[in-house]
C-alpha cells in the first residue's frame, strides 16, 4: 500500500473516530432527557404542583412546598448575589487590568472550583451553628457563593465586548468614569448580563450538596427564612434513595420539572446572548 493511500485511510478513520466521540458525548444527554420525560411525565398532575408530600403508603400528594421552596431560595440568593456578582464583574472589566485584578479573577475561578459540599459546610459553620437552626437564609448564602463567580465572569466578558468608541464618546462629553460605567457601559451590556444571571440561576436551581446542611428540607409549607425550607433537588435526593415505588415516581416527576426549567432558562439565555453578541459585533 503506498503512503498516499495510507494517509488517506488514517485521515478518514481518525476523523470518523472524533465523530464517534461526539456521538458518545451527546447520546446520554438525549437518552437522559427521553428517559426522564417518559418516567416523569406520567406522574405529573395538578396536585403535584399544589399539594404537600404524603407519607409512605398514601398515594398522591405533591411537591408544592419544594417547588415554592426552590423559588424562594432562588429569590433570596438573587437578592444578594446578583448585585455583588455584577459589581465585581464591573470591577474586573473596568479596573481589573492589573495584578490585583488577576488575583480577583483567580479567586473567582477558585471559588468556582471549590467542591459545592465544602461551600455547604462553610455556610453551615457560618450561619447554622451560631444560629442553632437550619434556615433558608443559610441555604441562600451557600447558593450565592456558587452563583457569584459565574455572574462575575459573564458580566466581565460582556462588558469587555462594549466597543471602546462608546466609552470614549461618553468621556469626551465630559462625564466621569464612574458615571460612564454605570449609565453607559452597563446599560449597553444589560441584555448580556441578564442572560449571564439566568445561566447562573439555572446552575444553582439544581444544586443539592450545599443545601444538605443549610436549607435541610421540610415536609411542610415554609414558615419564614429563618426556618428549614424544602427544595426540589433535596426532595429528589430523599425520594430517590428511598425504596418506595411511589416516591420514585414523585422523584421522576420532580426531575422532569427541574430539568425542564433548567433547559428553558438555558435556551432563553443562549438565544439572547447570541443576539446580543451579534448586534455588538456589528457596531
Amino acid at each position, binding site marked *: 500500500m503506498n503512503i498516499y493511500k495510507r494517509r488517506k485511510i488514517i485521515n478518514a478513520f481518525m476523523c470518523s473516530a472524533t465523530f464517534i466521540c*461526539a456521538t458518545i458525548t451527546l447520546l*446520554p444527554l438525549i437518552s437522559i432527557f427521553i428517559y*426522564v420525560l417518559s418516567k416523569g411525565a406520567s406522574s405529573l398532575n395538578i396536585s403535584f404542583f399544589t399539594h404537600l408530600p404524603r407519607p409512605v403508603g398514601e398515594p398522591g400528594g405533591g411537591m408544592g412546598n419544594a417547588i415554592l421552596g426552590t423559588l424562594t431560595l432562588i429569590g433570596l440568593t438573587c437578592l444578594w448575589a446578583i448585585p455583588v456578582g455584577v459589581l465585581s464583574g464591573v470591577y474586573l472589566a473596568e479596573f481589573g487590568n492589573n495584578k490585583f485584578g488577576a488575583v480577583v479573577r*483567580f479567586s473567582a475561578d477558585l471559588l468556582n472550583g471549590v467542591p459545592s459540599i*465544602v461551600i455547604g459546610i462553610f455556610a453551615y459553620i457560618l450561619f447554622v451553628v451560631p444560629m442553632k437552626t437550619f434556615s433558608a437564609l443559610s441555604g441562600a448564602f451557600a447558593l450565592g457563593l456558587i452563583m*457569584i463567580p459565574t455572574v462575575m465572569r459573564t458580566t466581565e466578558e460582556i462588558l469587555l465586548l462594549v466597543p471602546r468608541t462608546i466609552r470614549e464618546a461618553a468621556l469626551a462629553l465630559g462625564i466621569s468614569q*464612574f458615571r460612564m460605567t454605570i449609565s453607559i457601559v452597563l446599560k449597553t451590556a444589560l441584555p448580556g448580563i441578564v442572560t449571564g444571571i439566568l445561566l447562573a440561576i439555572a446552575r444553582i436551581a439544581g*444544586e443539592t450538596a450545599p443545601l444538605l446542611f443549610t436549607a435541610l428540607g421540610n415536609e411542610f409549607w415554609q414558615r419564614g427564612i429563618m426556618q428549614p425550607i424544602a427544595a426540589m*433537588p433535596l426532595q429528589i435526593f430523599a425520594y430517590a434513595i428511598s425504596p418506595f415505588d411511589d416516591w420514585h415516581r414523585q422523584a421522576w416527576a420532580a*426531575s422532569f420539572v427541574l430539568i425542564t426549567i433548567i433547559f428553558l432558562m438555558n435556551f432563553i439565555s443562549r438565544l439572547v446572548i447570541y443576539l446580543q453578541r451579534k448586534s455588538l459585533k456589528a457596531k
Partner: protein
Amino acid sequence: MRKFKEFIVEKLILICGLFCILVVVLIFIFLLKEGLTLFKTVPLSHFLFGKNWYPISEPAQFGILPLILGSLLVTVGAAIISIPIGVGCAIYIAEVAPLKTKEILKAGIELLAAIPSVVLGFIGMITLVPWIKTIFKLPTGLTALSGSIMLAFMAMPTIVSIAEDALYSVPKSYKEGALALGATRWQTIWRVELSAASSGILAAVMLGIGRVIGETMAVMMITGNSAVIPTSILEPVRTLTATIAAEMGEAVVGSEHYFALFAIGIVLFLISFAINVTADMFLHKK
C-alpha cells in the same frame, strides 16, 4: 453631592471586587479553625494514612486513606473514560464538524453540563447500577466503576468546551500552513493543532478532573459508600465528598468526628486549589 455619590459607588465596586478574595480566604480560615482542632488528639499521619475510617466506634479511628483512595479510583476511572472521548469530541467540534452541526453540538454539551447531579445520580441508580451488576455478575452494582462512568459524563462538558476553545484559538495560519504543505486534515490536527493547543487542553483536563473530585451527590448515590480500601474498580467505594455529605448531619458539633469532617474539607480545598493553580498556569502559559 455628586462627588460623594461617585465616591460611594467607587468604593462599593471595589468592595465587590474584593469579595471573592475575602470569601476564599474566609472559607480556608474557617476550615482550618475547625479542622485543625482534630490534630490535637489525632496525629496528622494517622489521619492521612490511617487505614480505618470508624468515626463512631469506641475508640474512634479517623484514617482517611480509604476515602482518598476511593476518590482517586473514581476520578482516575472517570478521567480514563472522559479525556479521550472529551478531547475527541472537542476536535470534532472545532475542526471536523460542519458549521450547523457544530452549533447544535455546542448547545447540546452546554445542556449536558446543566443537568443537576442529583438527577444524573438518580438515573445512574436506576439504569447503570443494575447493568453493571448483571454484566459483571456482582453482588451489587454500586461500584467505583458505576461512579466513574457517571462522573465521566459530568466532566465531559468542562473538558469539551475548554479544549474546544483552545483548539479554536490556534492561529488559522498554522492550519493553513500545514495544509498547504500537503498534510491531510488529520495530520494537521494531530501534529500541528493539538500541540499548539496542548496547554489549553491540559487545563481543560485539569478542570474536568476538578469537577469530578468535587462532585458529591451522584457519587454518594451510586458508589455504594463503603469506607474500605478498594482492591478493584468493581467494589463499592466511598469518596471524600460523599463522606462529608453523609456524616455531617449526624456529627455532634464540637466532637472529634465533626472536626475530622472539616479536616476532610481542608483536604478537598487544597486539592481544588492545586488543580486551579495548575490549570491557571497552563492557561496563561503563552
